[in-house]
């Protein structure tokens, strides 16, 4: 998206770095692509001097902490951070703040008070899945929960939200729970393993990146296809579309847009520019419903994730609305 | 009973079984103070097993162990060490990654406490100086950096060293197998000195003249029993061999066939004089132990065998001396160990032909008398000497025209040796070439031509009548071509 760039002389000499802890799935790849696209234009336009992305070889807080420490040494003015852990990077983040560096975390946020947070309400996301099911299936039934990677903050949050939702709508009961590690093949394997022992299920609540795997596993049996909540991946949307066209299948899809990295970039730029920005900002998650499925599918790159990229104006709007 | 009271150590009626194998079948052995007992027997006679019993490493299933007239009920390694029993084992048993000093620490449990390094160094250096004066071994060196002879020296010195508990009974299980003549001489002299001061020694060797010279009393074992026991004067070489149950066949004299016309089959630019071998020749590599003979063999093997592509017709094959390191495959049966080098002939299009393998195995089992009920037993069920025979059979069963032998007769009994010598002569007569490194002069004399090594170089070439002990010793020490 081309944006109107007004020259901000104050940040044209500033250098921003992206600290990313994982590049091994389509969501992260889309995030990196969005970053490069948007920041590349910003650098060309002279808004900032540099916006370098860095990714660690392994998804580990320790490695990312070392990466942040290196960024301090390299003299960046701001670090945009998708953190491997909300707390384990606090030491490194504190060191960066002490060195006068602006730290903006997004998606995987950090709790260190000196950093900014662009958060998604993951708990609400989980709860809304059950809410949707309650609307669609008022009589309730059995649910299968697919969780993410054990021991990770996001997994815990979404799952807590789902359980909250089940408490709110007691006609639902979670009869099985497996870890799909946010990967289609792992989810497929886990679901295939538990499925034979499960009673009839009416819905599958997921965390993103695992809906298609669940659909594959269920399709391999002679069960009736339950309502699987999707996670905005293109293969999920495409499968949904096929089902919709042939059987009128209905569901919804929800996830955080990978382009949120570009929002974080603009927020960091605004802070460097001297704007007063509240430490906690919230972005809505990206939800796709039965009626806007086709539009979203058309806008999604084949094999990618449904995405939204942000402009400087969007960022200013988010900052203003938080005040 | 009087004798038992006086004995430093006495084993009575010891029986040890390993599964179906009866390693000891009622052995009674006494060692008096100030006595050197020579222990001989064919491979697998049970010598090492009786050593393990005395050393406390093995509890006999029947029979008793007594020391200084006292019957020992709860006997183990630590009890043995406390009574001054020390042992040099048949296989090298130091930690190669540790320095000599650190190995000394391991051997002497009570050496601990602050400053143990200094004390350990003093102890081992003193012992090395006593046994092998002029050894030139620095006690700070890692054992792995030592030559095999140096390691054996250290091990012997370790057994004679005194760190609080003086050694009273030292057991030497084939200690000279890697030592050259002069070092072996030094060790034997020390054994004499040690017994003269009241110490006792059990000395096991397949080199009979050492036994005859050094021992006061000789015990002959056969198939897990003691079959003869007499003062050393009561034996001569021939009698000893007879008692062991093997008859030394005539050596067949020096080979007389004229070799120089046979075609050259192998040549190598070694350090020093050039090396060459002809078809049907038995070429000896002599000299002091560890002076480059093994390196030449390895170089010849490396130069003529591929590491990347299988060769159907390799020129050379190798008989290892260090069985454990580069000889046997421990998980395998005897048959598989035997056939591994000749699989090319026992297979079609990469498939191993089980029948042919079995036939060939049975054939060779008969030919060189491998003592086993079944070729499908594990190789480790064989005695050391029999394992060595399997390695011989492995090499001879290939089509290779040159056989490289790296002191392969280590720990092989006299009878077996004679059998193998005969096979070698027969094969040589058929045109096979043998390149043979040996530490034993008797074996070197069987060769048509001998290269003498010194300090990693070929210093001399001896042929025909020149091949004799005097010449070899002269050249290996002086380094002058004859």
């Amino acid at each position: 998206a081309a944006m109107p760039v007004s020259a901000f002389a104050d940040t044209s000499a500033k250098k921003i770095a992206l600290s990313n802890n994982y590049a091994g799935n389509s969501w992260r790849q889309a995030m990196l692509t969005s970053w490069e696209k948007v920041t590349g234009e910003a650098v060309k336009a002279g808004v900032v001097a540099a916006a370098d992305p860095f990714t660690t070889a392994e998804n580990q807080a320790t490695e990312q902490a070392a990466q942040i420490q290196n960024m301090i040494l390299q003299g960046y003015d701001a670090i945009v951070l998708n953190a491997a852990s909300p707390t384990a990077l606090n030491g490194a983040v504190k060191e960066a703040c002490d060195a006068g560096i602006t730290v903006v975390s997004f998606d995987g946020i950090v709790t260190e008070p000196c950093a900014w947070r662009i958060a998604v309400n993951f708990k609400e996301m989980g709860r809304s899945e059950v809410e949707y099911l309650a609307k669609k299936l008022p009589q309730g039934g059995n649910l299968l929960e697919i969780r993410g990677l054990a021991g990770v903050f996001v997994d815990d949050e979404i799952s807590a939200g789902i359980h909250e939702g089940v408490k709110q709508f007691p006609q639902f009961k979670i009869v099985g729970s497996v870890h799909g590690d946010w990967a289609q093949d792992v989810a497929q394997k886990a679901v295939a393993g538990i499925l034979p022992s499960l009673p009839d299920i009416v819905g599958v609540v997921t965390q993103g990146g695992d809906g298609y795997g669940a659909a594959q596993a269920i399709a391999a049996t002679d069960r009736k296809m339950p309502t699987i909540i999707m996670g905005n991946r293109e293969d999920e949307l495409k499968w949904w579309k096929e089902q919709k066209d042939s059987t009128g299948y209905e569901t919804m899809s929800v996830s955080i847009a990978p382009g949120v990295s570009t929002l974080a970039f603009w927020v960091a730029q605004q802070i460097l520019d001297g704007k007063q920005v509240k430490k906690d900002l919230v972005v809505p998650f990206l939800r796709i419903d039965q009626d806007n499925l086709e539009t979203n599918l058309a806008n999604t790159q084949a094999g990618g994730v449904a995405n939204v990229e942000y402009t400087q104006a969007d960022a200013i709007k988010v900052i203003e609305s938080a005040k | 009973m009087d004798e038992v009271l006086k004995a430093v150590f006495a084993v009575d009626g010891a029986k040890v079984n390993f599964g179906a194998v009866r390693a000891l079948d009622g052995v009674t052995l006494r060692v008096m103070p100030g006595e050197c007992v020579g222990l001989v027997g064919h491979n697998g006679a049970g010598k090492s097993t009786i050593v393990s019993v005395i050393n406390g490493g093995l509890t006999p299933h029947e029979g008793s162990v007594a020391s200084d007239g006292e019957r020992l009920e709860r006997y183990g390694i630590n009890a043995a060490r406390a009574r001054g029993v020390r042992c040099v084992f048949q296989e090298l048993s130091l930690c190669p990654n540790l320095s000599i000093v650190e190995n000394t620490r391991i051997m002497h449990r009570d050496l601990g406490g602050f400053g143990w390094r200094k004390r350990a160094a003093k102890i081992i250096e003193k012992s090395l100086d006593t046994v092998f004066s002029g050894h030139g071994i620095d006690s700070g060196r890692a054992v792995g950096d030592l030559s095999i002879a140096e390691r054996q020296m250290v091990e012997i010195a370790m057994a004679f060293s005194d760190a609080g508990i003086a050694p009273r009974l030292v057991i030497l299980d084939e200690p000279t197998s890697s030592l050259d003549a002069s070092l072996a001489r030094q060790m034997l002299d020390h054994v004499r000195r040690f017994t003269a001061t009241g110490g006792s020694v059990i000395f096991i060797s397949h080199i009979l003249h050492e036994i005859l010279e050094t021992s006061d009393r000789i015990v002959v074992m056969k198939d897990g029993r003691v079959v003869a026991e007499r003062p050393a004067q009561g034996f001569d070489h021939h009698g000893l061999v007879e008692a062991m149950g093997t008859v030394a066949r005539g050596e067949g004299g020096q080979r007389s066939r004229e070799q120089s016309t046979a075609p050259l089959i192998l040549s190598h630019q070694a350090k020093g004089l050039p090396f060459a071998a002809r078809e049907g020749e038995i070429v000896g590599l002599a000299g002091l132990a560890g002076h480059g003979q093994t390196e030449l063999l390895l170089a010849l093997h490396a130069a003529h065998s591929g590491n990347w592509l299988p060769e159907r017709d390799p020129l050379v094959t190798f008989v290892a001396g260090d069985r454990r390191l580069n000889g046997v495959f421990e998980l395998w049966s005897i048959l598989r160990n035997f056939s591994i080098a000749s699989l090319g002939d026992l297979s079609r299009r990469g498939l191993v032909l089980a029948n042919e393998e079995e036939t060939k195995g049975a054939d060779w089992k008969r030919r060189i008398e491998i003592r086993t009920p079944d070729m499908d037993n594990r190789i480790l069920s064989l005695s050391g000497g029999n394992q060595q025979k399997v390695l011989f059979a492995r090499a001879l069963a290939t089509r290779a025209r040159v056989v490289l032998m790296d002191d392969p007769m280590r720990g092989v009994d006299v009878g077996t040796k004679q059998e193998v010598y005969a096979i070698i002569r027969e094969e040589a007569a058929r045109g096979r070439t043998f390149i043979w490194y040996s530490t034993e002069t008797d074996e070197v004399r069987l060769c048509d031509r001998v290269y003498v090594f010194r300090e990693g170089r070929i210093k001399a070439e001896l042929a025909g009548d020149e091949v004799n002990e005097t010449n070899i010793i002269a050249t290996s020490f002086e380094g002058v071509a004859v």
Partner: protein
Amino acid sequence: MTPLFRLVSKPWIWSWLAAFVVWFLTIMVTLGASTLGLSQAALTFAAFSVIVGIGQMFVITLGPGNIDLSVPATMTLAGTVALKLMNVENGLILSGLLIALVIGLVVGLCNYALIKALRIPPIIATLSTSFIVQSAAIWTNRGLRIKPPSVLAEFTTSNTLGVPNVAIVALLISLLAWFLLEKTIYGRWISAIGQSMPAARMAGIPVDGTRFVTYLFCAVLASVAGYLLACFSGGAALNMGSEYLLMSIAVVVIGGTAVAGGDSNVPGIWGASLFMFLVVSMLNTYGVGAGIRLIMTGLIIISVIMLAGRRAGMR
């Protein structure tokens, strides 16, 4: 020796026993109603572990220190590149398989080149290659999931006579591996090298050639597994191999192959692969949380090897 005793002394029996017990406990939850479904699922997913496990087993047989950590990255690269090349065209299925195989060969070549030329211990060498291969996978298509050709997707997800097709493929590969190990010179060679490399060299075995071929074989099997898995799960993902790192090692050792090398065991791989899948299913079925599930998995692994007992370790 009674037949029973001989059976008990087989190293692979324990993994089969464990798999059976876990399978039984799982189907008992539904009083047997889930038998067919669970068995089919187990066969399907065990198949992938079997294929990579066999490759890993050949490498581990080469002796202490030999291990291939590049398996996950190879699976990912082979899967992504093959699917990208085929681009949902049924006509390109063979070309896709071919490119997967070529990738396996190249990775194996790199692994052995590092091990041999730079004398890097295999564990580090293959780890290094795996980083590079993983980067290559990211670089080729940046994690986009491309669908497999319909024929392939159909083939990998359906059954023949009630047996999943991927399981049949894995069975064929297992038979080939068994044949190689037990009947051919090559099998003797790798076993010999695993017991003692110097002895193997002295016995005239082409040691480098054999090791090279073995590393190639392992990488090729990994790429085949990646190809099949990508088709089975409806597209390659950048992280699709990651769980096969520990898995490939675990199934080899639980299956009764000597970690010290020289002794391999094909049936055990099947038992162990089924077990590894079933134990997760069982604990999921009983509704056990992730923490307890991990602890149980670990304890069961340890119990199995304790029962399988006195095998020479990595000593």
